[in-house]
């Protein structure tokens, strides 16, 4: 079973091979990266089958000791159990689809090789994260993913927006990561180890459990873009669309949810942490959904939608069902990456991300529109597409826990979701055509989308099987909740159709703006989060930096310059001494040697016979000297 190690290792090797090469050589080796992720996909399916039929603990585990602190050993290890097996298949299926799709999407880029290298490193880190059997290894993979996210958002770093977005994403998630590091410190102090088995079976008191759980929740909020740390994800859309599909829709942003699922016993031991998680999820799901309603950039709509759906996963966690959260994570990974890949084709065809300049794409892009329909219906929660089943499971959990207020908010969020999905769909695909010359994407882009669309359409039927595999129960939806959620979804779609979809209603944003000036202003400014952060956090930081810069210029530079001036005059004195005395001595010795040489060289006559005479004379003198001395 040690071949499981190869699953994260193959893409990592692809990175190691690609990264040091030149731009041209990297571009030639792109198939290697694709082959690596396809290899991981094959091995992941093998790993899944090895765990099948699941319902039990780990089937394989391996670890290495990396350090000893006192008498405690720090180990890093990988473990294969049902949850990691499911995550492996999700990550590798989406990763393989994205890499194949990128062959078509990115083929005009000079730096396609670098793109594939980072994508491979990311895939390796995500696979290591889901396989890790301890919090320390999880954290390491988590940080590598943050780096890859930064690199891919800033892929087009010649432009200002991606550059700033990459810095914003990195710093915002880093704020969350601080929570993770503190949580690790508390975990180690309390349980004395990092591996899940020890930490999760530790006898947690409510107080420390709350502390650890809240710190981890903070980390998860940063990574999974939950209010109020969500601000980076919409900006992250400045990166390449397939990278957004993989990182900012399917996998990395779900890592936060995954962390909470892993640490769930600690959250359960706390209780309060669960309530906070629930409300973070509720607020995020609703507010991000409302923001998605007013965006014109198709990728931003999907970004806010992702935030909202991640909110749903936090709702499930907060309601006490990590299984429902994981279920929604899996279905969401498939349908949201599908939507992003579809958006990529649309952006390629329409040469714009602004939905107001699109329209009538359904006829021009038949395959894309069908695949997009599958993803949209899943996101809206229409039976039998995958989102329906997992969202329904979350709503059912809320009802079962008697969280009626939360249920109402979640239902409203579902309604809003259906509305913005309908808005997106009708604007892009059925509204009056704005452009004539539109082309369907390349086959390498369509095939991954079709694969994801089929998965999205059928995976819902395997919910209970998935539950058995995980060792928990995922029941078929009860008729009551299913009916309520379907009514909400259909209501949202109908309203969306009424506003944006009818032939007669050419959408007039201006009219909406005038009718609801305050609400529109709040939404258009994204609840002023960016402004607030910009003013207080970034502004405060800038003021501090300016004060420090002044101090630096006056005091530090003064000292440095003074020292430099003193040193300079000292060295001028040294220069004089050197020129007069040291050089004088050296030159004097040299000229004395030269004069002596001029005298001695006349001994060299060049005449052979004079040398012979000299030698003979010297020998005679030598003999005479020996005779005299001997006597």
């Amino acid at each position, binding site marked *: 079973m040690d071949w499981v190690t190869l699953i994260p290792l193959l893409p990592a090797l692809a990175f190691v091979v690609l990264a040091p090469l030149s731009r041209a050589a990297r571009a030639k080796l792109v198939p290697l990266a694709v082959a690596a992720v396809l290899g991981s996909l094959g091995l992941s399916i093998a790993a899944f089958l090895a765990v099948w039929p699941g319902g039990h603990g780990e089937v394989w585990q391996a670890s290495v000791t990396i350090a000893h602190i006192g008498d405690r050993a720090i180990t890093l290890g990988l473990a294969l159990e049902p949850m990691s097996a499911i995550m492996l298949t999700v990550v590798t299926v989406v990763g393989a689809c994205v890499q194949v799709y990128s062959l078509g999407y990115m083929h005009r880029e000079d730096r396609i090789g670098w793109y594939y290298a980072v994508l491979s490193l990311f895939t390796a880190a995500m696979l290591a994260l889901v396989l890790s059997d301890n919090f320390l290894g999880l954290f390491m993979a988590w940080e590598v993913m943050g780096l890859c996210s930064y690199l891919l958002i800033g892929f087009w770093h010649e432009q200002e927006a991606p550059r700033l977005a990459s810095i914003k994403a990195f710093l915002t998630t880093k704020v969350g990561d601080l929570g993770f590091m503190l949580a690790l410190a508390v975990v180690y102090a309390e349980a004395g180890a990092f591996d899940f088995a020890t930490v999760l079976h530790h006898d947690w008191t409510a107080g420390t459990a709350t502390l650890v759980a809240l710190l981890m929740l903070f980390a998860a909020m940063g990574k999974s873009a939950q209010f109020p740390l969500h601000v980076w994800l919409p900006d992250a859309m400045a990166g390449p669309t397939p990278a957004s599909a993989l990182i900012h829709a399917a996998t990395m942003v779900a890592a936060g949810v995954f962390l909470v699922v892993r640490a769930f016993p600690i959250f359960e031991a706390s209780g309060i942490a669960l309530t906070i998680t629930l409300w973070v999820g509720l607020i995020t799901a609703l507010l991000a959904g409302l923001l998605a309603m007013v965006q014109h950039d198709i990728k931003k709509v999907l970004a806010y939608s992702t935030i909202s759906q991640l909110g749903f996963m936090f709702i499930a966690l907060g309601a006490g069902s990590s299984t429902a959260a994981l279920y929604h994570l899996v279905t969401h990974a498939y349908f949201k990456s599908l939507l992003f890949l579809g958006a990529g084709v649309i952006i390629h065809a329409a040469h714009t991300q602004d939905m107001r300049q699109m329209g009538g794409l359904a006829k021009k892009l038949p395959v894309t529109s069908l695949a997009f329909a599958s993803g949209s219906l899943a996101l809206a929660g229409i039976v039998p597409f995958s989102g329906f089943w997992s969202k329904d499971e979350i709503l059912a959990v809320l009802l079962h826990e008697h969280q009626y207020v939360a249920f109402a908010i979640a239902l409203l969020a579902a309604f809003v979701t259906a509305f913005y999905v309908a808005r997106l769909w009708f604007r892009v695909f059925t509204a009056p055509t704005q452009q004539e010359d539109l082309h369907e994407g390349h086959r390498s882009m369509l095939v991954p989308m079709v694969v994801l669309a089929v998965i999205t359409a059928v995976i819902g039927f395997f919910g209970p099987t998935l539950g058995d595999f995980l060792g928990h129960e995922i029941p078929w939806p009860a008729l009551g909740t299913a009916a309520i959620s379907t009514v909400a979804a259909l209501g949202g779609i109908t309203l969306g159709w009424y506003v944006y979809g009818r032939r007669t209603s050419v959408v007039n944003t201006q009219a909406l703006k005038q009718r609801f000036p305050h609400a529109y202003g709040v939404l258009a400014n994204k609840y002023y989060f960016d402004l607030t952060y910009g003013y207080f956090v970034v502004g405060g930081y800038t003021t501090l930096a300016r004060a420090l810069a002044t101090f630096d210029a006056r005091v530090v530079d003064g000292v440095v310059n003074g020292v430099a001036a003193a040193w300079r005059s000292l060295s001028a004195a040294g220069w004089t001494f050197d020129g007069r005395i040291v050089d004088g001595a050296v030159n004097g010795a040299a000229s004395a040697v030269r004069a002596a040489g001029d005298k001695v*060289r*006349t*001994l*060299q*006559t*060049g*005449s*052979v*016979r004079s040398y*012979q*005479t000299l030698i*003979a004379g010297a020998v005679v003198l030598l003999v005479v000297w020996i005779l005299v001395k001997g006597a």
Partner: protein
Amino acid sequence: MTVGLPHVLTLAALLFGIGLYGALSRKNAVHVMMSLELMANAVNLNLVGFSRFVTPEAMTGQFFAVFSMVVSAAEIGLGLALVIAIYRRKRSVELDAVQELKG
């Protein structure tokens, strides 16, 4: 009259003197080398003579003479090669023609 060490040494001294005179007085490089050979063989004669009359049981001097002959054969080969090389350049074997090393 039996031949003793003084006879040998006298002969060697004569040979050496002739060789030295030739080496210093001749201009022709081949003559100079012949004279040098005379001097070398005078020394060899000394070695053999001392060996024969002073330590007859140890053959050191005799072996040394043979050794010295081998070395001077090699040396004369090298010297003649140099003389030919000089002749090719200068069309002359006169020692006075070679003055390049004058300081």
